[in-house]
């Protein structure tokens, strides 16, 4: 099967999930207390104005039609209008998105830069100090409330030592603390998986063959061990995007980083539900797309997986 076809199948598989995600958001917004039309009109609005807005929004139609309308407008990139800013939700998201992307990439880069070498080294030398650090790190990563560790970082580096800014995004230095905080969330698991994957690859038959052929250890490590270990590592990185995006919401709030995560929390306090649900759906879309990319990357690295995935996809 060609890669292009696999991509096509994988994208098609995501469609029910996408529709489902939209349905979940639609239902959640329906459960919300209060009349959305009145919310938009404001507390002093006349009943006839509220009624007019209700008709404009299509709130007088049957529910299933409302859902179809809702889906079709989202697919056209129309996430509705923000109550607070009175601008299209998608514009607000796009204005703040670069900050979130920068933060997420910086965090991922830090996590990878520490977790991969540490994981590989501790797999090669399981009884070393690095191995011990790796297991502590993975435990701490899974047990630390990141909003708290972020505040502790602010206190240590911004208040006590005065070497880094505490919040905002004015200079490049502002990204250091939030990126490290968010990286902590990813690092532990990434180290653990890397370590396990490299250990497994080290024990496999073809590595044994490579050793018996007398290949140099560097060649074996790069060409045979790491190449095989990359598959679980990429998988976990794909899965971790969920934690990364969720963690970004918390981290951005702690450091007043002006991305879509802090915008989401602000919008909830302002009861700006169109904006809030727009941001959540947007993040879910991104998550789904990244998962597709991960799967494709996976198939690209390991042609065997492509076949397996393809069969699994059809059954």
């Amino acid at each position, binding site marked *: 099967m060609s890669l292009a076809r696999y991509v096509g199948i994988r994208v098609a598989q995501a469609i*029910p*999930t996408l529709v489902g995600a939209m349905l979940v958001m639609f239902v959640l917004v329906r459960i*919300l207390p209060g009349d959305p039309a009145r919310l938009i009109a404001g507390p002093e609005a006349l009943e006839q104005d509220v009624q007019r807005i209700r008709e404009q929004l299509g709130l007088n139609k049957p529910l299933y039609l409302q859902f179809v309308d809702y889906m079709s407008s989202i697919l056209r990139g129309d996430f509705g209008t923000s109550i607070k800013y009175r601008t299209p939700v998608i514009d607000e998201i796009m204005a703040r998105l670069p900050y979130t992307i920068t933060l997420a990439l910086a965090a991922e880069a830090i996590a990878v830069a520490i977790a991969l070498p540490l994981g590989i080294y501790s797999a090669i030398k399981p009884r070393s100090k690095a191995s011990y650090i790796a297991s502590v790190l993975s435990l701490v990563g899974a047990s630390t409330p990141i*909003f708290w560790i972020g*505040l502790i970082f*602010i206190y240590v580096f911004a*208040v006590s030592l005065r070497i880094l800014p505490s919040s905002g995004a004015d200079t490049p230095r502002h990204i250091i603390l939030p990126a490290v905080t968010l990286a902590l969330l990813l690092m532990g698991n990434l180290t653990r998986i890397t370590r396990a994957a490299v250990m497994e690859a080290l024990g496999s038959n073809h590595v044994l063959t490579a050793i018996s052929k007398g290949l140099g250890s560097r060649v074996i490590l790069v060409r045979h061990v790491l190449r095989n270990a990359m598959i679980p590592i990429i998988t976990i990185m794909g899965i971790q995007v969920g934690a990364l995006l*969720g963690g970004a919401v918390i981290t951005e709030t702690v450091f007043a980083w002006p991305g879509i995560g802090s915008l989401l929390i602000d919008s*909830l306090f302002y009861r700006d539900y169109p904006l809030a649900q727009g941001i959540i759906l947007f*993040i879910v879309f991104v998550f789904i797309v990244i998962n597709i990319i991960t799967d494709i990357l996976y198939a690209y690295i390991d042609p065997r997986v492509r076949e397996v995935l393809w069969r699994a996809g059809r059954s």
Partner: protein
Amino acid sequence: MESGEILRRVYEARRRRLREMWETLKSNRAAYVSLYVVGFLVFIAIFGPFLTPYNPYDFDLSRARQPPSFAHPFGTDELGRDILSRILEGARYTIGISIASVLLGVVIGVILGLASGYLGGLWDTVIQRIVDVMLAFPTVLLAIALVASLGQGVASLIIAIAISTFPVYARLVRGVVLQVVNEDYIAAARLLGKSKIYIMFKHVLPNSISPIVVQATYYMGLSILLASALGFLGLGVPPPTPEWGAMIGSGRTYLFSSPHIVVFPGVFIMISALSFNLLGDGLRDALDPKARALLRRG
């Protein structure tokens, strides 16, 4: 052999297995200590309000933001409330909400997982699509969306966390079901004319208990972090409830001058999550016979 004798042997084998599990758990020092820490946390979650040296809600601005002292071991918060008392009182929120949400999540997940794996067909397809959709949401984000929609409060927090986490159990149980469904004893039960529901709960479910217990223990750690994160964001239980995350959320304004308001509740959150994670590691080794065999060999 008469039936009394058989029963006696069955019980003895069961006892031996439990003793072996206990020995394995005990041999993992970190997990064993964590067991006591978890016991202690549950204790303060139940009896915390009777142990508080001060009233956790009484505010007195004249003694606001005092650093830790002999009278107030963890200091006082921005309204002069004793932080130790608030942590003891708050344990029932943070820990209690986590326990309740894990239980609820397990119940939903187990029922859906059993139905999906054992009934198969349309049930399986529908349930798996639901699980797919739930897993398409980052956990924190789904929980945020749910609490925002259900409104603030303990009940909605429990429901939100349970719904955000049940898909994992559903997947897990389905996997186990598919593994055991072709075993002889299931066929035997079917031949005896037992109903599907009976077989599901009497024969299939017991096989899933070990992985569920391990997963649920890990998820206790996750739920504590999730509940406190929502509290921190101001989406959890409303003030003045001393939920640990909410304490950090309201204390962060005074971080620059009085960091102790933020530090102590965070330490408790971290210790709680850490001990559940360590206990999960220990239980995984104790309940998984394969890992156990390895351990004994090593």
